[in-house]
């Protein structure tokens, strides 16, 4: 989940995909570098040090999206977001936020954060990265998703084996549950759920 002290490391392996359309045809659920460029690292300034606190998406030149508990669960003095090149060895953009909008429905409970979503207004626009496009269609059970970010490749379910190493990875999975399923907290109408199996569905983000 949250990485207390994420370090950045270059992606050490990957595949080359030069044409997004060809890739989509060959591997319809594989994402491209272009897809993951606006996926960045979220940092908190705490006691004079910047600590990693999850993943963030650029949705507009001036706005980024993340969860509410990433900013509500711990004190901090400032926040910033960082976007790196696909290989991870150069910073494409790094900017602080000057306003934080946590959804008022975001709760403090660890088991169910409610409307766990937050917007950051950036202190300066980011012009060299194309923002993600938000899906505005109809959610369908059984959709295949490609997740990309600073997730953990360790053995799932075992807290002691989790290793958040700061490498941006991608994984694919079909949704297993959907908002409104009775097993979800509060009926969880805001949720979609999936198991991103380890390690078969995971790979490093492909290099350019």
């Amino acid at each position, binding site marked *: 989940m949250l990485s207390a002290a994420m370090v950045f490391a270059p992606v050490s392996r990957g595949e080359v995909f030069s044409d*997004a359309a060809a890739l989509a045809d060959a591997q319809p659920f594989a994402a491209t570098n272009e897809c993951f460029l606006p996926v960045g690292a979220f940092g908190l300034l705490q006691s004079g040090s910047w600590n990693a606190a999850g993943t963030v998406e650029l949705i507009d030149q001036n706005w980024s999206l993340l969860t509410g*508990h990433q*900013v509500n669960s711990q004190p*901090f003095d400032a926040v910033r977001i960082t976007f790196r090149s696909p290989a991870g060895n150069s910073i494409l953009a790094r900017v602080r936020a000057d306003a934080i909008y946590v959804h008022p429905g975001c709760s403090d409970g660890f088991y169910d954060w409610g409307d766990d979503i937050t*917007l950051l207004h950036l202190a300066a626009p980011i012009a060299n990265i194309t923002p993600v496009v938000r899906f505005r*269609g109809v959610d369908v059970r059984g959709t295949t998703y*490609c997740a990309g970010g600073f997730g953990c490749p360790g053995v*799932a379910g075992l807290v002691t084996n989790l290793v958040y190493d700061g490498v941006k990875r991608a994984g694919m999975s079909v949704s297993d549950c959907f908002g409104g399923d009775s097993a979800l907290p509060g009926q969880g109408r805001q949720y979609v*759920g999936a198991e991103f199996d380890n390690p078969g569905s995971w790979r490093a983000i492909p290099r350019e």
Partner: protein
Amino acid sequence: MGSPLDSGEPWFQNVNRQWQLAAISTGVYIEGNWVLGSLTLALRITRYNDWIDCVMGTLVPALSIESVDSATARIEWPSWATVYSLQTSCDVASTNWTAVTTQPTDDGTNKWVFVTQSVPTQFWRLARQPPPGASSTTLSGPANALPTSKAVVLLWNDLLPSVLVPESE
């Protein structure tokens, strides 16, 4: 068991060869308890697009009014307009609007309050609130203008419903 994702991690879905942001990781859940790993849950973006657009200033909420009886009216606006609050004035051109302190009822789709007659003509509007800080931060906030919705006016003698008065957006 699945690999644990990172908080805020995007879930993309392929729409006509374009990868679109459909959800963001929020936590993991298994057999009634949340644990690290296993089933990852993500918030569906489609449920929050209006809220996101509203906060970003690209979607300004509309305000509606309807009479309940000769002295009572119901004023309603969308629930996603969380960065707006209801104000009232007797003069639509006034620069000194007063916040309506009545806590609105919220069913998740709409918010509403009931208002009673105090003056012959009364205006209401939604005004965007200054950006908040969060936790321990003292952030300066964006310097963009704070929009307001169009005002609605109620002439108590006629109980005219939903009369829109053009105003700044």
